[in-house]
């Protein structure tokens, strides 16, 4: 926990630690977006005709849509024709048949990121799908998972190998026309993860996807679809990093979760995209649509997110609580430093009887950053006996940052109960003085105070990642005291 003075100095000076670039030969599309580009993308992925049609329909719809401007963020206009929509490391076959065939450069990259993919070094108990720019490069533990009947593969494979499942669910939770970025994603998504947990199966290990953006001037548009069949359980975690570049890069993902009767999905995110430098130059635009449909009775969808990266974050992992007694949860830590901007929160849409939801949001702002919580709690006419509890806390470090809370509550059912608590606090001089008087370094004191503030959310993360998340906060807060 504690570090020597020298280490502390290094820590303060340390930059974004995942900012390196992998030198690898890639097949990258020329920048620009039109129907031909989409057809080429679909062709490279050897997609069936229906998939291409689906993409084109989304694209045409997208052309008519406007980029949302209601979020509490500001960024230069994105030229969608200056982005490359596909970049993949060169390889002989379209898909790696086994890990031995994966380019050693790529394996090294993931090793450097702390995600060893090789059989002998794999993370114990965690199966990983590694997505590099536009493609999935490897998926570990496929066999033991298959034995349990769990399908865990890239979405590209799923489109080819499990078309019925994909066709049945893709776009049902986040349709084409849902929003501008989801529309764009539907047209150009290049890879992502597919999970299917069959009836009554408790997925024997944690599943995770590690997203890595490497190529310059490309966007990453991944699509994740997780289906938990009746009575099943799955815990899934995603992590993400990108090199340090002066240009902004777009990441517009869509995640869809479907939970049938008595099924549970726990989805955790540790988001550490490159946040830009101290002057606010560069960084990822993280414009993401994540939504879960708890369609079965007694089903449960739980989102936990730790958001420390990205220059601009626009993200509202949501739950549609359709099934009777279904449960939605959202636990969030969003930290912004320097010039980062985050507008994040959730939507809990209560449609079924006795549905319940919990929202715990912890926003931490430091430097000159801006951090907004935006949340909608909605009760439809059929949401008899539904209830929500929302707790929304903001912590300010320094006096040049901003915290905002935009809670929306809509109720069409009189029996619904909603509770909302909100606090804003500062890391006080008294707290800092107490810590320092006990010999604790100021940086460490802030990180300890912030970790304490986030405790309720961290305890929701899978064990291995709770520690990571704590460390990540520490790194993200560097330079915030001064």
């Amino acid at each position, binding site marked *: 926990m504690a570090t020597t003075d020298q280490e502390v100095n290094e820590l303060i000076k340390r930059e974004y630690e995942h900012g390196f670039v992998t030198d690898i030969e890639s097949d990258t599309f020329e920048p620009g977006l039109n129907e031909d580009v989409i057809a080429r993308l679909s062709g490279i992925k050897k997609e069936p005709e229906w998939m291409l049609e689906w993409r084109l329909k989304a694209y045409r719809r997208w052309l008519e849509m406007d980029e949302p401007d209601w979020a509490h963020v500001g960024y230069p206009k994105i030229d969608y024709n200056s982005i490359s929509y596909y970049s993949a490391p060169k390889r002989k076959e379209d898909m790696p048949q086994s890990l031995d065939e994966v380019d050693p450069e790529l394996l090294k990259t993931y090793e450097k990121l702390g995600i060893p993919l090789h059989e002998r070094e794999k993370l114990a108990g965690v199966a990983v799908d590694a997505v590099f720019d536009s493609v999935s490069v490897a998926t570990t533990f496929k066999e033991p998972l298959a034995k349990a009947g769990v399908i865990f593969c890239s979405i590209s494979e799923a489109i080819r190998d499990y078309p019925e499942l994909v066709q049945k669910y893709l776009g049902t939770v986040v349709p084409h026309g849902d929003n501008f970025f989801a529309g764009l994603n539907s047209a150009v998504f290049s890879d992502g993860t597919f999970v299917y947990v069959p009836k009554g199966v408790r997925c024997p290990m944690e599943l995770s996807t590690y997203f890595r953006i490497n190529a310059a001037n490309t966007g990453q548009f991944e699509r994740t679809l997780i289906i938990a069949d009746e009575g099943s359980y799955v815990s899934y975690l995603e992590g993400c990093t990108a090199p340090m570049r002066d240009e902004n890069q777009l990441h517009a993902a869509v995640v869809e979760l479907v939970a049938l009767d008595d099924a549970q999905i726990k989805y955790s995110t540790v988001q550490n995209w490159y946040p830009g430098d101290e002057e606010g130059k560069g960084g990822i635009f993280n414009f993401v649509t994540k939504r879960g449909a708890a369609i079965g009775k007694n089903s449960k969808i739980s989102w936990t997110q730790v958001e420390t990266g990205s220059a601009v974050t626009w993200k509202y992992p949501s739950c549609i609580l359709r099934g009777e007694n279904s449960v939605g949860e959202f636990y969030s830590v969003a930290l912004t430093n320097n010039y980062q901007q985050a507008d994040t929160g959730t939507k809990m849409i209560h449609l079924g009887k006795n549905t319940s939801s919990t929202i715990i949001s912890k926003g931490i702002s430091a430097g000159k950053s801006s951090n907004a919580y935006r949340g909608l709690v909605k009760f439809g006419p059929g949401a008899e006996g539904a209830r929500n509890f929302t707790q929304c806390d903001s912590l300010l470090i320094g006096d040049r940052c901003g915290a905002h809370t935009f809670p929306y509550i809509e109720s069409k059912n009189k029996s619904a109960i909603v509770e909302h608590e909100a606090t804003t606090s500062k890391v006080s*001089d008294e707290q800092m*003085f107490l810590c320092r*008087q006990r010999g604790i370094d100021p940086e460490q004191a802030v990180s300890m105070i912030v970790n304490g503030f*986030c405790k309720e959310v961290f305890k929701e993360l899978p064990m291995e990642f709770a520690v990571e998340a704590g460390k990540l906060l520490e790194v993200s807060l560097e330079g915030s005291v001064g």
Partner: protein
Amino acid sequence: MLSIKNLHASVEGKEILKGINLEIKAGEVHAIMGPNGSGKSTLSQVLAGNEAFEVTEGEITLNGENLLELETEERAREGIFLAFQYPVEIPGVSNLQFLRTSVNAMRQHKGQDEMNAAEFMKLAKEISKQVDLDPAFLKRGVNEGFSGGEKKRNEIMQALLLQPKLAILDETDSGLDIDALKVVSDGVNALRAEDRAILMVTHYQRLLNHIVPDYVHVLAGGKIIKSGGRELALELEERGYGWLGLKDEETADSSATSSAN
């Protein structure tokens, strides 16, 4: 050990300390008494390095080392400990984590190995018993929901844990009932050692019945106006601060139930 020469300090432009001179040797216990607003608490905050106060003149040395050049945490690592009058809460951070971080920061400074969680737990449990705190309190948030008495005992527990060279106790007796006062005083007496100095800041003489000081100083208007031995405190008790020509609505009585708050 501690030498204060002509110390002037102000807060928000207002001078509070106006030329303090004080010498404290290892093994000694000094009490600083004085009416409300005399600058007692300011003195303890300034010694610990609270940046809200500006030292405008004078010097403070600890074993010859210029304290004014050191940051708060560096002073702490050099052995200055302040038991706070009103310890602040740190929600969500367990006492155990806070204390271990603190102890390890000090150990590291001395070039000692860090204590692991198990070793530390054992030590912390032992010491918490010494100040009559239920070890369960270690799992609670720092000062979170603590009663006034628990907070004070927690402060003394930390002093016992950190074994400072100079322990400054700021109104450690305020708000304590007679039983808690006894526990806290026993803790402070356990701290007394040949190589350690203790500086007690108090409004009331009653604490000095339990922790007998070697020297007593009266602070008023930002200056030490009188110094003496134990008998000075007793005289103050008997005659009040008015005896020294000081205005203070409260007197330095020994009533166990009164409080400085």
